[in-house]
Protein backbone atom coordinates (compact mmCIF):
# COMPACT_ATOMS: atom_id res chain seq x y z
CA UNK A 1 0.00 0.00 0.00
CA UNK A 2 2.71 2.40 1.00
CA UNK A 3 4.93 1.37 -1.89
CA UNK A 4 3.52 3.95 -4.24
CA UNK A 5 3.76 7.63 -3.43
CA UNK A 6 0.38 9.28 -3.67
CA UNK A 7 0.02 12.98 -2.96
CA UNK A 8 3.49 14.00 -4.02
CA UNK A 9 4.13 11.60 -6.87
CA UNK A 10 5.93 14.26 -8.85
CA UNK A 11 8.76 14.42 -6.31
CA UNK A 12 12.04 12.70 -7.20
CA UNK A 13 13.24 12.52 -3.61
CA UNK A 14 10.45 12.25 -1.07
CA UNK A 15 11.09 12.08 2.69
CA UNK A 16 7.99 11.40 4.77
CA UNK A 17 8.30 11.99 8.52
CA UNK A 18 11.72 10.39 8.66
CA UNK A 19 13.37 9.84 12.03
CA UNK A 20 16.69 8.12 12.62
CA UNK A 21 18.30 6.90 15.82
CA UNK A 22 21.76 5.41 15.37
CA UNK A 23 20.97 2.29 17.38
CA UNK A 24 18.17 0.60 19.31
CA UNK A 25 19.52 1.87 22.60
CA UNK A 26 19.30 5.52 21.50
CA UNK A 27 15.95 4.84 19.87
CA UNK A 28 14.58 3.55 23.20
CA UNK A 29 15.85 6.67 24.97
CA UNK A 30 14.27 8.85 22.31
CA UNK A 31 17.57 10.32 21.09
CA UNK A 32 17.45 10.84 17.35
CA UNK A 33 20.15 12.06 14.98
CA UNK A 34 17.54 13.50 12.65
CA UNK A 35 13.89 14.17 13.49
CA UNK A 36 10.75 14.45 11.48
CA UNK A 37 12.35 15.17 8.12
CA UNK A 38 9.84 16.05 5.43
CA UNK A 39 11.29 16.92 2.08
CA UNK A 40 10.22 16.87 -1.54
CA UNK A 41 12.81 17.41 -4.24
CA UNK A 42 11.77 17.70 -7.87
CA UNK A 43 13.49 15.95 -10.76
CA UNK A 44 16.66 17.80 -11.71
CA UNK A 45 16.52 20.11 -8.69
CA UNK A 46 19.73 21.25 -7.02
CA UNK A 47 19.33 21.46 -3.26
CA UNK A 48 21.82 22.51 -0.63
CA UNK A 49 21.70 21.71 3.05
CA UNK A 50 23.44 24.06 5.44
CA UNK A 51 23.73 24.01 9.18
CA UNK A 52 26.15 23.85 12.09
CA UNK A 53 28.53 20.90 12.30
CA UNK A 54 27.11 17.77 13.80
CA UNK A 55 23.54 18.63 12.83
CA UNK A 56 22.97 15.41 10.93
CA UNK A 57 23.73 16.59 7.41
CA UNK A 58 25.85 13.58 6.67
CA UNK A 59 23.23 11.34 8.24
CA UNK A 60 20.77 12.82 5.81
CA UNK A 61 23.03 11.75 2.94
CA UNK A 62 23.26 8.21 4.25
CA UNK A 63 19.49 8.05 4.47
CA UNK A 64 19.01 9.32 0.94
CA UNK A 65 21.44 6.81 -0.54
CA UNK A 66 20.00 3.92 1.43
CA UNK A 67 23.22 3.29 3.38
CA UNK A 68 21.14 3.81 6.53
CA UNK A 69 17.49 2.88 7.05
CA UNK A 70 15.21 5.31 8.86
CA UNK A 71 13.98 4.28 12.31
CA UNK A 72 10.58 5.76 11.51
CA UNK A 73 9.02 7.11 8.35
CA UNK A 74 9.61 6.40 4.68
CA UNK A 75 11.92 7.59 1.94
CA UNK A 76 11.07 7.37 -1.74
CA UNK A 77 13.52 8.11 -4.51
CA UNK A 78 12.46 8.07 -8.14
CA UNK A 79 9.09 6.59 -7.21
CA UNK A 80 10.50 3.63 -5.30
CA UNK A 81 10.84 3.15 -1.57
CA UNK A 82 14.52 3.11 -0.56
CA UNK A 83 15.38 -0.21 1.06
CA UNK A 84 19.07 -0.64 0.34
CA UNK A 85 22.07 1.06 -1.31
CA UNK A 86 20.80 3.19 -4.16
CA UNK A 87 22.87 2.59 -7.27
CA UNK A 88 21.44 5.59 -9.08
CA UNK A 89 23.42 7.83 -6.75
CA UNK A 90 27.03 8.98 -6.87
CA UNK A 91 28.87 10.37 -3.86
CA UNK A 92 31.86 12.62 -3.28
CA UNK A 93 33.29 13.89 -0.02
CA UNK A 94 35.64 16.52 1.33
CA UNK A 95 38.58 14.11 0.99
CA UNK A 96 38.97 13.09 -2.67
CA UNK A 97 40.02 9.57 -1.48
CA UNK A 98 41.42 8.55 -4.85
CA UNK A 99 43.33 5.27 -4.87
CA UNK A 100 47.05 6.14 -5.10
CA UNK A 101 48.00 3.02 -7.10
CA UNK A 102 45.52 3.80 -9.87
CA UNK A 103 45.87 6.42 -12.57
CA UNK A 104 43.29 9.18 -12.73
CA UNK A 105 41.51 7.32 -15.53
CA UNK A 106 41.42 4.05 -13.59
CA UNK A 107 40.19 5.87 -10.50
CA UNK A 108 37.31 7.32 -12.47
CA UNK A 109 36.54 3.87 -13.94
CA UNK A 110 36.38 2.20 -10.53
CA UNK A 111 32.59 2.46 -10.09
CA UNK A 112 32.05 0.76 -13.45
CA UNK A 113 34.02 -2.22 -12.16
CA UNK A 114 31.50 -2.54 -9.36
CA UNK A 115 28.04 -1.41 -10.39
CA UNK A 116 25.82 -3.52 -12.62
CA UNK A 117 25.17 -3.69 -15.54
CA UNK A 118 28.63 -2.20 -16.31
CA UNK A 119 30.43 -4.66 -14.09
CA UNK A 120 29.72 -7.71 -16.23
CA UNK A 121 30.51 -5.84 -19.46
CA UNK A 122 33.57 -4.07 -18.15
CA UNK A 123 36.18 -6.16 -19.95
CA UNK A 124 34.31 -6.21 -23.24
CA UNK A 125 33.44 -2.51 -23.25
CA UNK A 126 36.60 -1.17 -21.68
CA UNK A 127 37.50 1.03 -24.66
CA UNK A 128 34.05 2.60 -24.69
CA UNK A 129 34.17 3.25 -20.95
CA UNK A 130 37.63 4.75 -21.19
CA UNK A 131 36.39 7.13 -23.86
CA UNK A 132 33.48 8.08 -21.63
CA UNK A 133 35.80 8.71 -18.67
CA UNK A 134 38.15 10.78 -20.82
CA UNK A 135 35.26 12.91 -22.05
CA UNK A 136 34.05 13.43 -18.50
CA UNK A 137 37.54 14.37 -17.33
CA UNK A 138 37.87 16.81 -20.21
CA UNK A 139 34.55 18.41 -19.28
CA UNK A 140 35.89 19.28 -15.81
CA UNK A 141 39.18 20.58 -17.21
CA UNK A 142 41.25 17.45 -16.67
CA UNK A 143 41.80 16.59 -20.32
CA UNK A 144 45.17 14.92 -20.86
CA UNK A 145 45.48 13.98 -17.18
CA UNK A 146 44.22 10.41 -17.66
CA UNK A 147 47.54 8.71 -17.03
CA UNK A 148 48.60 10.92 -14.12
CA UNK A 149 48.57 9.47 -10.64
CA UNK A 150 46.63 11.24 -7.88
CA UNK A 151 49.76 12.53 -6.17
CA UNK A 152 50.69 14.33 -9.38
CA UNK A 153 47.46 16.34 -9.24
CA UNK A 154 46.74 19.43 -7.12
CA UNK A 155 44.04 19.29 -4.45
CA UNK A 156 41.50 20.96 -6.73
CA UNK A 157 42.28 18.57 -9.59
CA UNK A 158 41.95 15.58 -7.28
CA UNK A 159 38.54 16.83 -6.21
CA UNK A 160 37.49 17.23 -9.84
CA UNK A 161 38.56 13.63 -10.48
CA UNK A 162 36.63 12.54 -7.41
CA UNK A 163 33.48 14.21 -8.78
CA UNK A 164 34.06 12.48 -12.13
CA UNK A 165 34.25 9.18 -10.28
CA UNK A 166 30.89 9.95 -8.70
CA UNK A 167 29.37 10.70 -12.13
CA UNK A 168 30.89 8.03 -14.36
CA UNK A 169 27.96 5.62 -14.06
CA UNK A 170 25.59 8.44 -15.00
CA UNK A 171 23.71 8.58 -11.70
CA UNK A 172 20.38 10.38 -11.44
CA UNK A 173 21.44 11.87 -8.14
CA UNK A 174 24.76 13.32 -7.02
CA UNK A 175 25.43 13.64 -3.30
CA UNK A 176 28.22 15.94 -2.21
CA UNK A 177 29.34 16.21 1.41
CA UNK A 178 31.33 19.44 1.78
CA UNK A 179 33.20 18.65 -1.42
CA UNK A 180 35.05 21.96 -1.61
CA UNK A 181 35.73 22.41 2.11
CA UNK A 182 39.44 21.71 1.92
CA UNK A 183 40.19 23.91 -1.10
CA UNK A 184 41.40 27.49 -1.25
CA UNK A 185 38.89 30.21 -2.08
CA UNK A 186 39.83 30.61 -5.76
CA UNK A 187 39.91 26.90 -6.53
CA UNK A 188 36.60 26.55 -4.72
CA UNK A 189 34.93 29.16 -6.92
CA UNK A 190 36.35 27.48 -10.03
CA UNK A 191 34.85 24.21 -8.94
CA UNK A 192 31.49 25.85 -8.23
CA UNK A 193 31.41 26.77 -11.91
CA UNK A 194 32.49 23.28 -12.95
CA UNK A 195 29.70 21.75 -10.92
CA UNK A 196 27.19 24.32 -12.15
CA UNK A 197 28.04 23.51 -15.79
CA UNK A 198 27.97 19.74 -15.28
CA UNK A 199 24.57 19.94 -13.65
CA UNK A 200 23.23 22.28 -16.31
CA UNK A 201 24.38 19.90 -19.04
CA UNK A 202 23.33 16.58 -17.52
CA UNK A 203 20.34 17.66 -15.36
CA UNK A 204 21.00 15.23 -12.55
CA UNK A 205 19.72 15.94 -9.06
CA UNK A 206 22.25 17.31 -6.62
CA UNK A 207 22.17 17.24 -2.85
CA UNK A 208 24.99 19.39 -1.58
CA UNK A 209 25.88 19.45 2.08
CA UNK A 210 27.97 22.47 2.99
CA UNK A 211 29.01 24.96 5.65
CA UNK A 212 29.45 27.69 3.09
CA UNK A 213 26.33 29.86 2.70
CA UNK A 214 27.63 31.65 -0.41
CA UNK A 215 28.28 28.30 -2.02
CA UNK A 216 24.77 27.08 -1.24
CA UNK A 217 23.10 30.24 -2.57
CA UNK A 218 25.22 30.36 -5.72
CA UNK A 219 24.63 26.74 -6.70
CA UNK A 220 21.28 25.61 -5.36
CA UNK A 221 17.66 26.01 -6.41
CA UNK A 222 16.57 25.45 -2.84
CA UNK A 223 18.53 25.83 0.40
CA UNK A 224 17.49 23.99 3.54
CA UNK A 225 18.77 25.09 6.92
CA UNK A 226 19.19 22.33 9.42
CA UNK A 227 19.21 22.74 13.19
CA UNK A 228 21.41 20.86 15.54
CA UNK A 229 20.63 18.20 18.19
CA UNK A 230 18.22 16.93 16.99
CA UNK A 231 18.69 17.52 13.28
CA UNK A 232 15.60 19.12 11.79
CA UNK A 233 14.94 21.23 8.74
CA UNK A 234 14.01 24.64 10.11
CA UNK A 235 14.07 26.83 7.01
CA UNK A 236 13.41 26.16 3.35
CA UNK A 237 14.53 28.99 1.10
CA UNK A 238 13.90 28.98 -2.61
CA UNK A 239 16.70 30.75 -4.53
CA UNK A 240 15.11 32.50 -7.49
CA UNK A 241 18.26 34.00 -8.93
CA UNK A 242 18.18 33.52 -12.70
CA UNK A 243 20.26 30.82 -14.36
CA UNK A 244 22.84 30.52 -15.76
CA UNK A 245 24.50 32.23 -12.82
CA UNK A 246 27.85 33.91 -13.19
CA UNK A 247 30.33 34.31 -10.33
CA UNK A 248 29.64 38.07 -10.60
CA UNK A 249 26.20 37.42 -9.17
CA UNK A 250 27.79 36.72 -5.79
CA UNK A 251 28.59 40.45 -5.55
CA UNK A 252 25.03 41.66 -6.23
CA UNK A 253 22.80 42.97 -3.40
CA UNK A 254 20.12 40.29 -4.14
CA UNK A 255 22.66 37.55 -3.57
CA UNK A 256 24.08 39.13 -0.45
CA UNK A 257 20.58 39.65 0.97
CA UNK A 258 19.80 35.95 0.69
CA UNK A 259 23.12 35.00 2.28
CA UNK A 260 22.40 37.48 5.10
CA UNK A 261 18.94 36.10 5.62
CA UNK A 262 20.26 32.53 5.89
CA UNK A 263 23.05 33.72 8.16
CA UNK A 264 20.37 35.27 10.38
CA UNK A 265 18.59 31.93 10.72
CA UNK A 266 21.77 30.12 11.66
CA UNK A 267 22.81 32.88 14.04
CA UNK A 268 19.44 32.72 15.81
CA UNK A 269 19.75 28.96 16.06
CA UNK A 270 23.20 29.18 17.56
CA UNK A 271 21.95 31.68 20.13
CA UNK A 272 19.01 29.54 21.26
CA UNK A 273 21.30 26.52 21.23
CA UNK A 274 23.77 28.35 23.45
CA UNK A 275 21.17 29.60 25.90
CA UNK A 276 19.64 26.13 26.06
CA UNK A 277 23.05 24.81 26.96
CA UNK A 278 23.41 27.42 29.71
CA UNK A 279 19.97 26.65 31.14
CA UNK A 280 20.80 22.96 31.51
Amino acid at each position, binding site marked *: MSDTPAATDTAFVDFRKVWLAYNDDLHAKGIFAVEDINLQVQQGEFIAIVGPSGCGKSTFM*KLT*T*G*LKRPSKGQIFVDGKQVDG*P*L*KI*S*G*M*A*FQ*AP*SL*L*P*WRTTLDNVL*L*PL*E*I*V*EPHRSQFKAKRKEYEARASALLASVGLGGMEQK*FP*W*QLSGGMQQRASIC*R*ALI*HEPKMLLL*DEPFGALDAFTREELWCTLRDLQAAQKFNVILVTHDLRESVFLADTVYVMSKGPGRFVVKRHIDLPRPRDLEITYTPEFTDIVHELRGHIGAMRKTGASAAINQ
Partner: protein
Amino acid sequence: MNRKQQEAWAPWVLMAATIILWQIICSAFNVSEFIFPSPMRILEQTIEHSSTIAGHAWRTFWVTMVGFAIAIVVGVLLGFLIGSSRLAYAAMYPLMTAFNALPKAAFVPILVVWFGIGVGPAVLTAFLISFFPIMVNIATGLATLEPELEDVLRVLGAKRWDVLTKVGLPRSMPYFYGSLKVAITLAFVGTTVSEMTASDQGIGYLLISAGSSMQMGLAFSGLLVVGVMAMLMYELFSYVEKHTTAWAHWGSQGE
Protein backbone atom coordinates in the same frame (compact mmCIF):
# COMPACT_ATOMS: atom_id res chain seq x y z
CA MET B 1 80.54 13.57 -3.32
CA ASN B 2 76.99 14.67 -2.77
CA ARG B 3 74.77 13.89 0.17
CA LYS B 4 73.09 10.91 -1.50
CA GLN B 5 76.40 9.23 -2.34
CA GLN B 6 77.60 9.86 1.19
CA GLU B 7 74.53 8.11 2.54
CA ALA B 8 75.06 5.17 0.18
CA TRP B 9 78.67 4.72 1.27
CA ALA B 10 78.10 5.37 4.98
CA PRO B 11 77.29 1.77 6.05
CA TRP B 12 80.34 0.38 4.18
CA VAL B 13 82.64 2.94 5.71
CA LEU B 14 81.31 2.25 9.20
CA MET B 15 81.71 -1.49 8.70
CA ALA B 16 85.29 -1.14 7.44
CA ALA B 17 86.14 1.16 10.34
CA THR B 18 84.71 -1.31 12.86
CA ILE B 19 86.68 -4.22 11.37
CA ILE B 20 89.91 -2.23 11.33
CA LEU B 21 89.40 -1.10 14.93
CA TRP B 22 88.62 -4.68 15.94
CA GLN B 23 91.77 -5.93 14.22
CA ILE B 24 93.88 -3.21 15.83
CA ILE B 25 92.57 -4.01 19.32
CA CYS B 26 93.15 -7.76 18.84
CA SER B 27 96.69 -7.21 17.52
CA ALA B 28 97.69 -4.48 19.97
CA PHE B 29 96.54 -6.30 23.12
CA ASN B 30 97.42 -9.71 21.76
CA VAL B 31 93.95 -11.07 22.55
CA SER B 32 93.80 -14.85 22.57
CA GLU B 33 91.93 -16.25 19.60
CA PHE B 34 90.12 -18.64 21.98
CA ILE B 35 88.51 -15.65 23.65
CA PHE B 36 87.97 -13.17 20.86
CA PRO B 37 89.40 -13.93 17.41
CA SER B 38 90.59 -11.13 15.18
CA PRO B 39 88.90 -10.43 11.81
CA MET B 40 91.95 -11.88 10.05
CA ARG B 41 91.66 -15.09 12.02
CA ILE B 42 87.92 -15.34 11.28
CA LEU B 43 88.63 -14.85 7.60
CA GLU B 44 91.31 -17.56 7.65
CA GLN B 45 88.97 -19.97 9.39
CA THR B 46 86.15 -19.15 6.99
CA ILE B 47 88.34 -19.97 4.01
CA GLU B 48 89.82 -23.06 5.65
CA HIS B 49 86.39 -24.50 6.47
CA SER B 50 84.57 -22.97 3.52
CA SER B 51 83.08 -26.21 2.20
CA THR B 52 81.80 -27.25 5.65
CA ILE B 53 80.38 -23.79 6.25
CA ALA B 54 78.78 -23.72 2.81
CA GLY B 55 77.02 -27.01 3.49
CA HIS B 56 75.65 -25.83 6.81
CA ALA B 57 74.74 -22.45 5.37
CA TRP B 58 72.81 -24.01 2.51
CA ARG B 59 70.89 -26.15 4.99
CA THR B 60 70.03 -23.12 7.15
CA PHE B 61 69.06 -21.16 4.06
CA TRP B 62 66.55 -23.58 2.59
CA VAL B 63 65.10 -24.50 5.96
CA THR B 64 64.55 -20.79 6.62
CA MET B 65 62.96 -20.31 3.21
CA VAL B 66 60.53 -23.19 3.77
CA GLY B 67 59.56 -21.81 7.17
CA PHE B 68 59.27 -18.33 5.71
CA ALA B 69 57.07 -19.54 2.84
CA ILE B 70 54.69 -21.16 5.33
CA ALA B 71 54.77 -17.94 7.35
CA ILE B 72 53.74 -15.91 4.28
CA VAL B 73 50.82 -18.22 3.48
CA VAL B 74 49.56 -18.45 7.08
CA GLY B 75 50.32 -14.79 7.84
CA VAL B 76 48.44 -13.53 4.78
CA LEU B 77 45.44 -15.78 5.40
CA LEU B 78 45.18 -14.93 9.10
CA GLY B 79 45.83 -11.25 8.41
CA PHE B 80 43.10 -11.25 5.79
CA LEU B 81 40.68 -12.90 8.21
CA ILE B 82 41.49 -10.55 11.09
CA GLY B 83 41.55 -7.45 8.92
CA SER B 84 38.28 -8.15 7.13
CA SER B 85 36.11 -9.20 10.04
CA ARG B 86 35.67 -7.20 13.21
CA LEU B 87 34.53 -10.32 15.04
CA ALA B 88 37.61 -12.27 14.00
CA TYR B 89 39.74 -9.30 15.01
CA ALA B 90 38.12 -9.11 18.45
CA ALA B 91 38.41 -12.87 18.93
CA MET B 92 41.93 -13.48 17.67
CA TYR B 93 43.98 -10.37 18.27
CA PRO B 94 44.47 -10.73 22.05
CA LEU B 95 45.36 -14.41 21.67
CA MET B 96 47.80 -13.68 18.86
CA THR B 97 49.48 -10.94 20.88
CA ALA B 98 49.85 -13.29 23.85
CA PHE B 99 51.28 -15.94 21.54
CA ASN B 100 53.73 -13.50 20.06
CA ALA B 101 55.02 -12.63 23.52
CA LEU B 102 56.16 -16.23 24.11
CA PRO B 103 59.85 -16.85 23.41
CA LYS B 104 59.90 -19.05 20.32
CA ALA B 105 63.07 -20.83 21.47
CA ALA B 106 60.92 -22.34 24.21
CA PHE B 107 58.92 -24.21 21.59
CA VAL B 108 61.98 -26.07 20.30
CA PRO B 109 62.01 -28.88 22.94
CA ILE B 110 58.29 -29.45 22.35
CA LEU B 111 58.76 -29.54 18.58
CA VAL B 112 61.59 -32.04 19.03
CA VAL B 113 59.22 -34.35 20.91
CA TRP B 114 56.71 -34.07 18.09
CA PHE B 115 58.95 -34.09 15.03
CA GLY B 116 62.31 -35.42 16.20
CA ILE B 117 65.73 -33.88 15.61
CA GLY B 118 66.20 -32.34 12.14
CA VAL B 119 64.28 -30.26 9.64
CA GLY B 120 60.87 -30.23 11.35
CA PRO B 121 61.60 -28.14 14.45
CA ALA B 122 63.79 -25.68 12.49
CA VAL B 123 61.18 -25.04 9.80
CA LEU B 124 58.45 -24.63 12.39
CA THR B 125 60.49 -22.32 14.61
CA ALA B 126 61.28 -20.11 11.60
CA PHE B 127 57.58 -20.09 10.76
CA LEU B 128 56.37 -19.36 14.30
CA ILE B 129 58.73 -16.45 14.76
CA SER B 130 58.07 -14.79 11.40
CA PHE B 131 54.34 -15.09 10.60
CA PHE B 132 53.26 -12.57 13.21
CA PRO B 133 54.55 -9.35 11.60
CA ILE B 134 53.14 -10.45 8.23
CA MET B 135 49.72 -11.11 9.75
CA VAL B 136 49.63 -7.83 11.67
CA ASN B 137 50.62 -5.78 8.64
CA ILE B 138 48.06 -7.33 6.30
CA ALA B 139 45.38 -6.85 8.94
CA THR B 140 46.39 -3.23 9.52
CA GLY B 141 46.33 -2.45 5.81
CA LEU B 142 42.86 -3.91 5.44
CA ALA B 143 41.45 -2.34 8.58
CA THR B 144 42.54 1.21 7.78
CA LEU B 145 39.99 1.81 5.04
CA GLU B 146 38.60 5.30 4.64
CA PRO B 147 34.93 5.04 5.65
CA GLU B 148 33.99 7.57 2.97
CA LEU B 149 35.51 5.56 0.17
CA GLU B 150 33.67 2.55 1.52
CA ASP B 151 30.41 4.54 1.28
CA VAL B 152 31.19 5.55 -2.30
CA LEU B 153 31.56 1.89 -3.25
CA ARG B 154 28.80 0.43 -1.05
CA VAL B 155 26.22 2.70 -2.56
CA LEU B 156 27.07 1.17 -5.93
CA GLY B 157 26.22 -2.24 -4.54
CA ALA B 158 29.78 -3.28 -3.73
CA LYS B 159 29.97 -6.35 -1.55
CA ARG B 160 32.48 -6.61 1.28
CA TRP B 161 34.58 -8.81 -1.01
CA ASP B 162 34.71 -6.13 -3.73
CA VAL B 163 35.89 -3.51 -1.27
CA LEU B 164 38.56 -5.88 0.06
CA THR B 165 39.94 -6.89 -3.31
CA LYS B 166 39.69 -3.51 -5.08
CA VAL B 167 40.81 -1.32 -2.21
CA GLY B 168 41.86 -3.23 0.91
CA LEU B 169 44.36 -5.66 -0.55
CA PRO B 170 46.18 -3.21 -2.85
CA ARG B 171 46.33 -0.77 0.05
CA SER B 172 47.87 -3.38 2.35
CA MET B 173 50.58 -4.36 -0.17
CA PRO B 174 53.16 -1.78 1.03
CA TYR B 175 52.57 -2.96 4.60
CA PHE B 176 52.93 -6.54 3.39
CA TYR B 177 56.26 -6.03 1.62
CA GLY B 178 57.48 -3.95 4.53
CA SER B 179 56.67 -6.81 6.88
CA LEU B 180 58.52 -9.34 4.67
CA LYS B 181 61.76 -7.48 5.28
CA VAL B 182 61.30 -7.78 9.02
CA ALA B 183 59.96 -11.33 8.89
CA ILE B 184 62.81 -12.79 6.82
CA THR B 185 65.43 -11.66 9.34
CA LEU B 186 63.32 -13.12 12.16
CA ALA B 187 63.04 -16.39 10.25
CA PHE B 188 66.83 -16.74 10.19
CA VAL B 189 66.88 -16.19 13.94
CA GLY B 190 64.26 -18.91 14.37
CA THR B 191 66.11 -21.45 12.26
CA THR B 192 69.47 -20.81 13.88
CA VAL B 193 68.10 -20.99 17.43
CA SER B 194 66.33 -24.23 16.65
CA GLU B 195 69.38 -25.80 15.00
CA MET B 196 71.45 -25.04 18.07
CA THR B 197 69.60 -27.64 20.11
CA ALA B 198 67.60 -29.72 17.69
CA SER B 199 69.70 -30.46 14.64
CA ASP B 200 72.89 -32.09 13.44
CA GLN B 201 73.18 -29.71 10.51
CA GLY B 202 72.91 -26.02 9.82
CA ILE B 203 74.64 -22.89 11.05
CA GLY B 204 73.09 -23.21 14.51
CA TYR B 205 74.61 -26.66 14.89
CA LEU B 206 77.93 -25.35 13.54
CA LEU B 207 77.95 -22.58 16.15
CA ILE B 208 77.39 -25.02 19.01
CA SER B 209 79.93 -27.58 17.82
CA ALA B 210 82.54 -24.94 17.03
CA GLY B 211 81.99 -23.36 20.45
CA SER B 212 82.27 -26.64 22.30
CA SER B 213 85.54 -27.47 20.52
CA MET B 214 86.91 -23.97 21.23
CA GLN B 215 87.10 -23.10 17.51
CA MET B 216 86.08 -19.51 18.11
CA GLY B 217 87.11 -18.39 14.63
CA LEU B 218 84.75 -20.92 13.09
CA ALA B 219 81.94 -19.87 15.44
CA PHE B 220 82.34 -16.28 14.36
CA SER B 221 82.37 -17.42 10.72
CA GLY B 222 78.99 -19.02 11.32
CA LEU B 223 77.62 -15.79 12.77
CA LEU B 224 79.01 -13.87 9.83
CA VAL B 225 77.36 -16.19 7.31
CA VAL B 226 73.91 -15.98 8.95
CA GLY B 227 74.26 -12.22 9.09
CA VAL B 228 75.18 -11.96 5.43
CA MET B 229 72.33 -14.25 4.33
CA ALA B 230 69.75 -12.33 6.38
CA MET B 231 71.03 -9.02 5.05
CA LEU B 232 70.95 -10.18 1.42
CA MET B 233 67.38 -11.41 1.76
CA TYR B 234 66.42 -8.18 3.48
CA GLU B 235 67.85 -6.19 0.57
CA LEU B 236 66.06 -8.47 -1.91
CA PHE B 237 62.67 -7.83 -0.31
CA SER B 238 63.47 -4.18 0.04
CA TYR B 239 64.07 -4.09 -3.72
CA VAL B 240 60.85 -5.99 -4.43
CA GLU B 241 58.96 -3.59 -2.16
CA LYS B 242 60.27 -0.53 -3.94
CA HIS B 243 59.46 -1.88 -7.39
CA THR B 244 56.01 -3.31 -6.73
CA THR B 245 54.43 -0.67 -4.52
CA ALA B 246 56.26 2.40 -5.70
CA TRP B 247 53.04 4.43 -5.45
CA ALA B 248 53.31 4.31 -1.67
CA HIS B 249 56.59 6.25 -1.81
CA TRP B 250 55.84 8.72 -4.56
CA GLY B 251 53.71 11.17 -2.66
CA SER B 252 56.23 11.72 0.10
CA GLN B 253 59.36 11.90 -2.04
CA GLY B 254 58.17 14.04 -4.92
CA GLU B 255 58.99 13.10 -8.47
